[in-house]
């Protein structure tokens, strides 16, 4: 049931307990306790909302930063990753295969803010060799959801 439940809420955090219970043919109380358990175990780490900020006047700026580091004896990449992760501006930190080590995703208000954050904070951390900043110009699809306004398909009322 655990996997089915996670599959259901992965793309719809708004599902009510009753809806989940119905879908899984389970008791609502059982669903509540399973969700609580998964939250405690940090299997479920949080609930996000996917927002198309382009449609809101407030300025937003996302950037992907490629970071090259020198791994540290004993802790490898983990300690550096944790330090980068601590900043509120940092949305995601991934260890990557390929030509650089970390992919860091930054949420800021403006290009200026993001740039200075990279210069002043990220680059200044020990053992960081170099960074390359890529600004997001437009989001077409995010977290599996298309950001485009889909025209409402016109279906006729009756087809036999």
């Amino acid at each position: 049931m655990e996997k089915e439940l996670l599959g259901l809420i992965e793309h719809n955090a708004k599902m009510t307990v009753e809806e989940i219970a119905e879908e899984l043919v389970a008791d609502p109380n059982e669903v509540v306790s399973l969700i609580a358990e998964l939250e405690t175990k940090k299997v479920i780490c949080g609930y996000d909302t996917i927002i198309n900020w382009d449609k809101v006047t407030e300025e937003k700026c996302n950037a992907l930063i490629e970071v090259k580091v020198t791994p540290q004896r004993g802790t490898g990449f983990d300690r550096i990753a944790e330090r980068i992760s601590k900043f509120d501006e940092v949305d995601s930190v991934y260890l990557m295969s390929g030509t650089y080590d970390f992919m860091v995703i930054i949420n800021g208000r403006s290009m200026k803010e993001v740039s200075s954050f990279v210069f002043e904070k990220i680059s200044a951390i020990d053992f960081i060799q170099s960074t390359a900043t890529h600004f997001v110009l437009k989001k077409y699809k995010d977290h599996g959801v298309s950001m485009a306004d889909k025209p409402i398909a016109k279906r006729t009322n009756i087809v036999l």
Partner: protein
Amino acid sequence: MRDFTSDRIKEIKPSGIRKFFDIANKIKDCISLGVGEPDFDTPWHITEEGIYSLEQGKTFYTSNQGLPELREEISKWNKRKYNLDYSPENIIVTCGGSEAIDIALRACINPGDEVIILEPNYVCYEPDIILAGGVAIKIKLKNENEFRLTPEELEEVITDKTKILLINYPNNPTGAIMTKEDLEKIAEVIKKHDLLVISDEIYSELTYSGNHYSIGALPDMRDRTITINGFSKAFSMTGWRLGYVMGPKAIMDQMKKIHQFVIMCSPTISQYAGIEALKNGDGDIEKMKKEYDKRRKYLLKEFDRLGLPCFEPRGAFYIFPDIRKYRMTSEEFATDLLEKEHVVVVPGTAFGDSGEGFVRISYAYSLDALKEAVRRIEKYIGSLNFKAGNYCTFDE
């Protein structure tokens, strides 16, 4: 001036409920549960394959029978899914199931041959039989049998002119299916009277309890069965116009001539997309089927709560509730529901006289739309008072 039109075509009756359709198609803010086609997009990897074929300049005729690679895949797919044994030579790729039904009938019917069809049914069977010069003999299926055909009902209408039994399971409009055991009993009658079966299995992948069983897979039935299937319902590809017909070689040879002279070949782009669908589309079917099943269960539960009687349909995407207790004809019920609550359901009579007393509800709609529709239907039937003396024509 002379009347230039064909007597045979004039024999085909126009739909009696045209008026209802006209009203329904004019109302804009209505919730329609009247559509008999999937509401999902064609899976992108299939569409993409069609686009790719265009980019590669594959914009010419294919062989009349259909691309060999596609027929190979159709053959394998039907073997794997339904244990049907048709080699690529015994398959013609058609413009949807509709063409397949037409050419199958035309390839077999001599003037006056009787073809047994089951009512209520999809609208094209009788006209296609008339076009082919045959005579349609109807069996009125019963709600208490869950709209399955029984061997007794079949025996009753067989004459020395009977040649073909045309069946459609999972069924449009009732959502009924026939199990292997049900079909075995029918097959005995078919063999006893030396008949041919045309089995329209376009909804085969949308079977919600167990797997679909194909009558052509029964012992000794392969050579007296023409099986029709296609991509419209399984892969949500109605507009691609892609179907196929499979049958014994002697009949296929005749059918091929009609297909060749009337259609030439199915759209090339659709055929390439079809190969991709059969090769890599199992997951898409499962996903859509799961969603339909969720809606089916929801409607059954809600109709039960509202006291709207209906048997449990186990196939296609239709529910066929019995509205006889409201003492209205199907058309009156549907028209009234449309006018008062702006919900479109199709009167059972659109599928033949024996659909009287029933309406077809399609669940090829989002769950949210279905919820709103149920709310409106609840309001409507709550307002109905069982007026005695209302016109009604059905047998109870």
